[in-house]
């Protein structure tokens, strides 16, 4: 399963970043940050090619390094969700990734709909944290 999950806001500022190993946190921040360029690229590419109607929210695999695979997802509200998966963990199917994204999006929507949440703030919801940590690797 995932080793790092990041929620990025509209203006590309991190809203929530969680990872399994605390000492690698900065490393994950770099990886997520660099993946944002690829997300932008993919978004502008789909808006140019009008013929192909591929405006799905899930962007699929953004890039893979020796250690990690990075997947991206963009909502209609310009929120980006990035999941980093351990490359050794093979056999993870595409629809499993999609299910994870959908679950995260649902949890995010719940957190935003909390009347005490002020739009634009980082997420501090306990329930959201639980969902994210449930998706992080259990080892």
């Amino acid at each position, binding site marked *: 399963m995932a080793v790092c999950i990041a929620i990025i806001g509209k203006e590309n500022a991190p809203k929530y970043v969680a990872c399994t190993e605390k000492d690698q946190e900065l490393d994950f921040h770099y990886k997520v940050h660099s993946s944002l360029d690829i997300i932008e690229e993919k978004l502008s590419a789909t808006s140019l090619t009008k013929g192909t109607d591929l*405006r799905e929210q899930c962007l699929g695999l953004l890039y893979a390094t020796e250690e990690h695979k990075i997947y991206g997802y963009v909502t209609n509200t310009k929120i980006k969700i990035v999941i980093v998966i351990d490359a050794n963990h093979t056999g993870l199917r595409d629809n499993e990734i999609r299910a994870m994204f959908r679950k995260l999006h649902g949890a995010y*929507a719940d957190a935003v709909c909390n009347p005490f949440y002020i739009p634009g703030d980082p997420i501090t919801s306990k329930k959201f944290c639980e969902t994210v940590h449930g998706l992080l690797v259990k080892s």
Partner: protein
Amino acid sequence: MVADEILLELLHAELVNYVCSNEPKEKEPSGQLNKHCNLSTLEYFGFSTGYKLIERFTKDWSRFKDELDTIKFICTDFWTSIYKKPIDNLRTNHQGVYVLQDRAFRFMAKISNGTQHLDAAPLYIAFTSGLLRGALANLGINSIVTAEVQSMPACKFHIQVPRNQMP
């Protein structure tokens, strides 16, 4: 069901009432009380509602193509789910100005028609102006929403999107 359609109207009327009654009363003739109600409070309620609603509504929607596509979604699906009818008329100059016309606006349908209660109209459209602004803000379009009422159940919402912010 007929009964649950009226709940939103009742809640909204009560919201307007609540905001008005919480205002500090100024020393003016009581006939002018309406004008002192704080429209920005109502507008802010609308903004946060719109911001949160749109997060849920667009969850299983494919990404919007452009600004016009987003506005169309607001006019049809978003409007229908709140006001049980789509916007009657949408006009745009393709330069960031959109005019949404509703010929029988739900929050004003129960007020007697014509120009009799026109001075109370701002109270009943402030929430919806905020709703539109909040929905658009969460979809990444920063806009200015103004409303216009000429004769009671019909109203127009003007959405202005400043051009320099567009990608």
